[in-house]
């Protein structure tokens, strides 16, 4: 098979390569008295050693020569690398190779200029016409494989083909299967299982199922009431009712917003030295929660985020949605501003490509994609879509903040603001009259320091008695305080959102950047979509006169949700599956390209994708269908035979156990002891972080103001996400790193997790609250206490053995270690919070 393809694909190339001649013979431009044999000898004895010593380290790997330039073959040199032919036989001095070794412009080798003699040798060789021995007759030439082209063949890759609704398989009746499954999902799964001669696991028990469903939809454990009601409901629709109840829960939005936040690299600060907060980022998070809760069609959800400001009638909601673009890193003092600009654009292209299309378009930034048929041009056509967007800052308020308040509020505010600014200016003048006096003997460093407002008071104070009188300083101090107060209480601002803006209706021209270098613009490109998907040319909508925007992003959104797009629905349906089953039908859920995993159930995936579109892109019907399937309701218990045949559960013969996510772990601890504050929405909160952790900051505590205790007990989705400082318990249980899009979380098991859930101040305090709540609930009876504690973490009746073990522990601890009843109970609560069954779902 391997050989066959090689022959078919590379026959022409192989043929030319087999010609055992050096073409230098016929095309040499400089007449030379040397014979061809002498020239080849010159190459072997003089040139080859120079190349070997200076160049081949980087330019000899046929797979990945540096800069795409291979110096081991004559035709490769003439073809050149990404910057074009290395040698022009008719213009030796203008040949790139000659220029770079002479250190004219680019410099090669980078480690230092070669001795003049070596340079002369290479130039002489170029003048001779680049004589090099060709491969000997019969000797196979190593085939140089380039990036995959966009052609009829590569367009046939499964995920690039249009989505077709597959027929639901008809299953053969067996002893266990009497009727066709009601749920088409099961028909697809069972058909494959039958083919593989695997039998599915039985259905899970009710508690396991309830825990699974509740966590999957809300990220929280079921309450005792919910468990009791489900266990007591013997009707055939009991489970269906639970799913409907959970889908209607406001906590559903919190849980699923968090998934989306992983994907869009959601963070509330900029990274780098200051790691400053992004104003109003939390409104985007609340937008996500509201969108999921209201079951907003995914097509609309996507369009609002990519182009909410370019819609015919933007609303505050759709403006907030474009905060999507502002969540990435922002270097406020880049060494190379142009490079930084293109890094920012790359962040948007990478995130958008992977999240919405499941394509790593970003790999084509410096050269054609090495794995997928995505030419470099396609990357820069996608860059062109965003070319008109402004940068995050300089200044942030102008570029990234938009007032979304109604017009009448804006008028009223303008008047208030004028008064306010007048007062501030007055103060400023009064202050500066004193400052001017003090300036006289400022050192350069002090001048620098003076730029920071908080430094001014001490700087002026230093000069009391010399340049400034005591009375003047007193006034200065009072006015400074007044200014601080005023600044902290501006007129109640207009409702503002973090959002995208563009610089005008016509964005600057876009170019292919050679080698991805923003200082090397190549051919100009127009906006466009990945060509391997055979997209139409973008139809850029004409926006209203007052919309200061190009409309390109709206064109992108329109194409993404158009029926011709083969990826959008597949990618999203697959994510839904992944977040229910722990893995997607395509495991690499943000990579549907050649290097991604193949779908284990391609027909099922297409079925779900078409269901999504048929339901007007609403997610809740799809959740419902997935969760009502037997596939979802199966037990996680093992089956030796199946395990042997399919250890990775590719066939989905059972439900895979999963560990709770970082947020679920923290929220469950708070839920278990009853202290979880279920308040929805609003600015982010700051749970206490230990001093040892803050010590890692250059200014310990900077940017982390500890919240009130009740706010510290809010759900994790509301915890402030600071790029350089992550809440330890979340970091330790593999929360998403917010610098890049995160499609699948890691699940690590490490001793530092155990240290944190055994010894941390947080966990010990939660255990204390837990014990207190238990004593309140269960009274003094150890039996009842143990039962209550275990029930709160496991949501099931503990066995007699489990109760006895706990009761023994309490008694033993009190007796042997001389601690109080309350303390022994607290320690038992600590044990409960560390149970595997607590953090693993069956």
């Amino acid at each position, binding site marked *: 098979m391997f050989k066959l393809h090689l022959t078919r694909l590379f026959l022409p190339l192989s043929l030319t390569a087999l010609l055992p001649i050096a073409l230098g013979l016929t095309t040499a431009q400089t007449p030379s008295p040397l014979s061809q044999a002498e020239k080849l000898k010159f190459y072997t004895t003089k040139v080859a050693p120079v190349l070997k010593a200076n160049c081949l380290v980087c330019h000899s790997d046929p797979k990945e020569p540096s800069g795409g330039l291979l110096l081991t073959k004559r035709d490769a040199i003439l073809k050149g690398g990404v910057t074009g032919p290395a040698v022009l036989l008719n213009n030796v001095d203008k040949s790139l190779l000659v220029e770079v070794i002479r250190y004219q412009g680019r410099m090669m080798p980078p480690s230092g200029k070669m001795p003049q003699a070596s340079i002369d040798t290479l130039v002489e060789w170029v003048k001779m016409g680049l004589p090099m021995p060709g491969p000997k007759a019969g000797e196979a030439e*190593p085939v140089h494989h380039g990036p995959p082209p966009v052609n009829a*063949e590569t367009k*046939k890759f499964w995920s690039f083909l249009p989505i077709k609704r597959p027929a639901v398989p008809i299953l053969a009746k067996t002893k266990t299967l009497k009727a066709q499954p009601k749920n088409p999902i099961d028909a697809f799964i069972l058909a494959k299982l039958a083919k593989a001669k695997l039998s599915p696991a039985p259905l899970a028990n009710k508690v396991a199922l309830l825990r699974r469903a509740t966590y999957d939809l809300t990220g929280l454990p079921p309450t005792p009431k919910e468990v009791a009601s489900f266990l007591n409901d013997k009707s055939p629709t009991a489970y269906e009712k639970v799913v409907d109840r959970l889908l209607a829960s406001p906590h559903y939005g919190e849980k699923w917003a968090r998934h989306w936040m992983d994907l869009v690299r959601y963070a509330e600060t900029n990274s780098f*030295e200051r790691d400053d907060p992004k104003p109003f980022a939390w409104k985007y998070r609340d937008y996500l929660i509201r969108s999921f809760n209201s079951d907003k069609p995914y097509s609309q959800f996507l369009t609002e985020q990519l182009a909410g400001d370019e819609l015919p009638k933007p609303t505050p909601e759709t403006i907030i949605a474009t905060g999507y673009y502002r969540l990435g890193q922002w270097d406020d003092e880049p060494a190379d501003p142009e490079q930084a600009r293109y890094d920012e654009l790359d962040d948007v292209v990478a995130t958008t490509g992977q999240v919405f299309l499941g394509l790593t378009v970003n790999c084509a930034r410096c050269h054609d994609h090495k794995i997928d048929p995505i030419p470099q041009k396609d990357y820069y056509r996608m860059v062109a879509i965003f070319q008109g967007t402004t940068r995050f800052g300089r200044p942030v308020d102008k570029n990234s903040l938009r007032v979304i308040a109604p017009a009448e509020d804006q008028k009223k505010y303008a008047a208030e603001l004028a008064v306010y600014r007048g007062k501030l200016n007055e103060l400023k003048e009064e202050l500066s009259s004193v400052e001017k006096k003090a300036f006289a003997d400022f050192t*350069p460093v002090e001048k620098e320091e003076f730029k920071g407002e908080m430094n001014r008071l001490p700087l002026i104070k230093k000069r009391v008695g010399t340049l400034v009188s005591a009375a003047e300083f007193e006034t200065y101090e009072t006015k400074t305080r007044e200014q601080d107060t005023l600044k902290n209480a501006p007129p109640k601002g207009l409702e503002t959102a973090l959002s995208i803006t563009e610089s005008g209706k016509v964005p600057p021209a876009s170019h292919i950047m050679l080698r991805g270098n923003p200082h090397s613009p190549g051919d100009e490109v127009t906006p466009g979509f990945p060509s391997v998907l055979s997209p139409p040319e973008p139809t850029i909508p004409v926006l209203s006169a007052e919309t200061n925007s190009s409309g390109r992003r709206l064109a992108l959104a329109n194409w993404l949700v158009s029926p011709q797009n083969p990826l959008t629905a597949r990618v999203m349906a697959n994510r839904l599956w992944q977040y229910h089953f722990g893995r997607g039908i395509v495991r690499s859920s943000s990579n549907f390209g050649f290097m991604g995993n193949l779908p284990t159930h391609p027909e099922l995936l297409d079925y779900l994708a078409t269901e999504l579109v048929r339901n007007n892109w609403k997610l809740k019907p799809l959740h419902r269908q997935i969760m009502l399937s037997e596939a979802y309701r199966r037990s996680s218990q093992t089956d030796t035979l199946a395990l042997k045949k399919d250890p990775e559960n590719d066939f989905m013969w059972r439900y895979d156990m999963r560990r709770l996510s970082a947020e679920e772990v923290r929220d469950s601890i708070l839920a278990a002891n009853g202290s979880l504050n279920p308040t929805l929405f609003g600015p982010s909160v700051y749970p206490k972080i230990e001093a040892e952790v803050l010590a*890692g900051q*250059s200014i310990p505590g900077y940017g982390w103001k500890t919240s009130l205790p009740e706010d510290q007990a809010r759900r994790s989705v509301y915890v402030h996400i600071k790029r350089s400082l992550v809440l330890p318990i979340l970091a330790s249980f593999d929360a998403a790193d917010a610098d890049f899009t995160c499609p699948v979380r890691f699940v690590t098991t490490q001793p530092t997790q155990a240290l944190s859930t055994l010894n941390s101040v947080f966990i010990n305090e939660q255990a204390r609250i837990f014990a207190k709540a238990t004593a309140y609930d269960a009274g003094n009876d150890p039996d009842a206490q143990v039962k209550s504690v275990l029930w709160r973490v496991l949501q099931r009746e503990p066995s007699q053995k489990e109760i006895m*073990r706990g009761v023994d522990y309490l008694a033993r601890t009190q007796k042997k270690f001389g601690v109080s009843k309350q303390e022994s109970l607290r320690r038992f609560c600590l044990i409960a919070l560390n149970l595997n069954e607590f953090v693993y779902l069956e």
Partner: protein
Amino acid sequence: MSEFCGRTRRQFIWETGAGFTGVALAGMLDSTFFEQSAKADGTAKFSNPLAPKKPHFEPKAKSVIFLYMYGGPSQIDTFDYKPTMYGRDNQSIAIKTFGRGGHKNVGRIVEPRWKFKQYGKCGKYVSDLFPNLAKQVDDIAFIHSMTADSPIHGSAMLQMNSGKILSGSPSMGSWVNYGLGTVNQNLPGYVVMLDPRGGPISGAKNWSSGYMPASYQATVFGGGKTPILDLSRPEGLTDPAQKDLLNTLRDYNADHEALHTDNSNLAARIASYELAYKMQSAAPEATDLAKETEATREMYGLNDKKTETFGRQCLMARRLVERGVRFIQVYSGGSHVDSTWDAHNDLKTNHDLHAGETDKPIAALLQDLKQRGLLDSTLIVWGGEFGRQPTAEYAEGTGRDHNAYGFTMWMAGGGVKGGVSVGQTDELGSAAVEDPFKVKNLHATMLHLMGCDPNRLSYFYGGLNQKLVGVEQTQPIHQILA
């Protein structure tokens, strides 16, 4: 493992009509790729991510100690001797500089504020800032032609630590632990020690594992009896009481595990509690200096307030190396400006302070490792995120601005030639003119000495085989390899 839907991955690539590359693909489909894609769902078999792994080739060094001079030491005041600069103080010259103050074309010379003397068999010139360290020059390889992509702390620190000027990529220590694992499971494989004055700019981003699993991030070691966060038992809980608590926990977890024997993650989590318990005693033991002799304490400067903190950290670093820790980073300087080597104000005060705190401890570390036969297998790296300009930052004073065009770093031990100097800056010490090296060359050298091919050690992420040294072929600094 490489079976997907009953086909090998290579078959799948061919069969899907994308027969484009046999050779390139074979290289990319290494085992780590499979592990990752299967493991990420949390259900595949547990395998310890830090288990020792085979290097690509026989390593010279087993551990790295990176002495990070945060803020950026001035090269011409430390190791890059520029004799013609003396006597030129305050001269105005044409010079291209780029620092936090932006691009400039002229500058006022601040001549080196310290004298240089020759040391060792190699006759290396070292400034009076390092009277102790200077005696070790025959073991040191100086790289005078380092360059970085940014002269701004935030991005430059990220580059020195992770190879990229943006955050989100794994730091060097993460790469080393990912590539080689660690031999002592009772201690973290990657340890960072901070200056008590504060952390560096960007904090934890400097030792993050970025897009790799959290298993590879550094553990911060503080001073005192509890070097690691949450290492010590809560007050009131005795050792036997904790053992009892853990035994009870294990009994519960064992019952649960018995129902799910095929899920190795459950067993691994049970084991992680044992490991955590062991770490509670192993880590304090490793950092407890009580058993060190008085001579050793004196050598590292523990009896002098000035050198005590850094000396303690260097001594702890040696003890961690002895216990198999792979990568240790020690920061000299914390917080901002004069609490670091960032000498914008008074050069003399600043460098006297930071060199004074570190000279003796670093000299002791080299000497101590050598006398214990550990220097051969321990790579020491010294330097900051960039250097400093030969000219003044302001109209007055001796403050120097940042300089990424040329600066000095040095390496010693683990496979490095001693008594050599490579690369040169111009006569002012302003920019690298001979053998300029990038940060990635430094990283490549480190990986190479650890037995990893820097151009092969890769991690598949975001559609790309990511490398510490980037996608282009990168060479180690051959001139300093022993």
